[in-house]
């Protein structure tokens, strides 16, 4: 791995300043980034660890909204959400493995927007708000395709605010090697309105399955999506699943998420 300067600021302002350096890169858990650096596939000249910033950590609930600090680890979210937002707790508690969950953070995951990552589905399905050091971005505007987000240069995620749904669940079909989601579906119900977000399936990254949303908004039951066909166009084709297979999983995992919610 190429060497770099390591800095660990204590505040968001310091972090933003440090990230202004040429070749600077934020590190928030690093469970993807460090592996890439070990392969010499990423070579930042300055690495700015965000995990020392107290203001980015922790989970709070107020007025039906759960606010998760960007540097909160998956394990911490799983624990904090268990009673109030079990769907999110299940998702966070199922990412990677225990060691990954002790280091990886929600901010890192959401900013990276890996097309097979779990978190983006919850953020999108809940219509969560991504709070940065500059602004607030609605989930529907935040995710812009594979590894692409609305974040600007020098912009750091500070927190993600989830309106806690009435009912919600995440159902993941794991890719058998990496244990990323081959297809994962997060279903969130707010009154009569249901939002369904799918990860792992599309080349464009996380997306909302509008047909499923309509069906479930009309009848919130697993059977409502049973007969629905999903188009394989634009679905990921890899060793572990053809587009047709993933399209099938979208409906299957949606039904399972509904049943589990």
């Amino acid at each position, binding site marked *: 791995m190429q060497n*770099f300067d*390591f800095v660990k600021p204590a505040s968001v302002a310091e972090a933003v300043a440090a990230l202004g350096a040429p070749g600077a890169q934020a590190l928030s858990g690093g469970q993807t980034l460090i592996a890439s650096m070990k392969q010499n596939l990423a070579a930042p000249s300055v690495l700015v660890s965000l995990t020392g910033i107290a203001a980015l950590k922790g989970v709070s609930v107020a007025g039906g909204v759960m606010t998760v600090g960007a540097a909160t680890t998956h394990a911490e979210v799983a624990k904090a959400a268990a009673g109030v937002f079990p769907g999110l707790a299940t998702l966070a508690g199922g990412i990677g493995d225990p*060691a990954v969950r*002790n280091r990886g953070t929600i901010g890192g995951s959401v900013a990276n927007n890996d097309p097979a990552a779990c978190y983006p589905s919850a953020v999108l399905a809940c219509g969560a708000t991504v709070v940065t050091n500059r602004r607030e971005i609605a989930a529907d505007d935040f995710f812009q395709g594979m590894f692409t987000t609305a974040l600007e240069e020098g912009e750091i995620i500070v927190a993600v605010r989830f309106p806690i749904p009435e009912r919600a669940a995440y159902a993941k079909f794991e890719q058998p090697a990496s244990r990323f989601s081959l297809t994962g579906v997060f279903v969130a119900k707010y009154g009569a309105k249901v939002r369904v977000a799918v990860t792992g399936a599309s080349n464009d990254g996380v997306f909302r399955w509008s047909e499923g949303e309509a069906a479930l908004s009309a009848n919130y039951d697993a059977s409502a999506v049973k007969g629905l066909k999903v188009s394989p166009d634009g679905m990921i084709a890899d060793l572990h699943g053809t587009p047709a297979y993933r399209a099938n999983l979208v409906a299957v995992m949606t039904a399972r998420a509904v049943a589990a919610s």
Partner: protein
Amino acid sequence: MKVSLTVNGKPMSGEVEGRTLLSTFLRETLSLTGTHIGCDTSQCGACTVHVDGKQVKSCTIFAADVAGAQVTTIEGMANADGTLGRVQQAFQDHHGLQCGFCTPGMVMASAALLAVNPKPTEAEVRHHLEGNICRCTGYHNIVKAVMAASGQDVSMAAE
């Protein structure tokens, strides 16, 4: 830069570069070679250690990022009198290891589980060991050892 940590209860320090991984620091600088490196994509779990009581993959963490932390490695898992600790002893009693290479990571992951879940079910043990790959045992005796270490009856897996 200089990094100071507490490793297995003892203060330790050494010079590191930004890129020095915790696993490298443990193995090369501190000669604690019980922490093993089995892959380069952060999946096999052979390098699992505890940082401030939580299991992490020491190959996917920079030494500089955990300055000041309490680190426990496999070398710190025996009882004070040198006898095997509870989890270690269960692994020996139930033949939970063969070549021994993944074993330090397995023991560290298992100990972390039992610390938060003193009586895990079989499914919980298997789920918890998701990030630790063993090629020798088929996991049977590892799962059995972890359950036995928790004081549970493992006769259902006796044969």
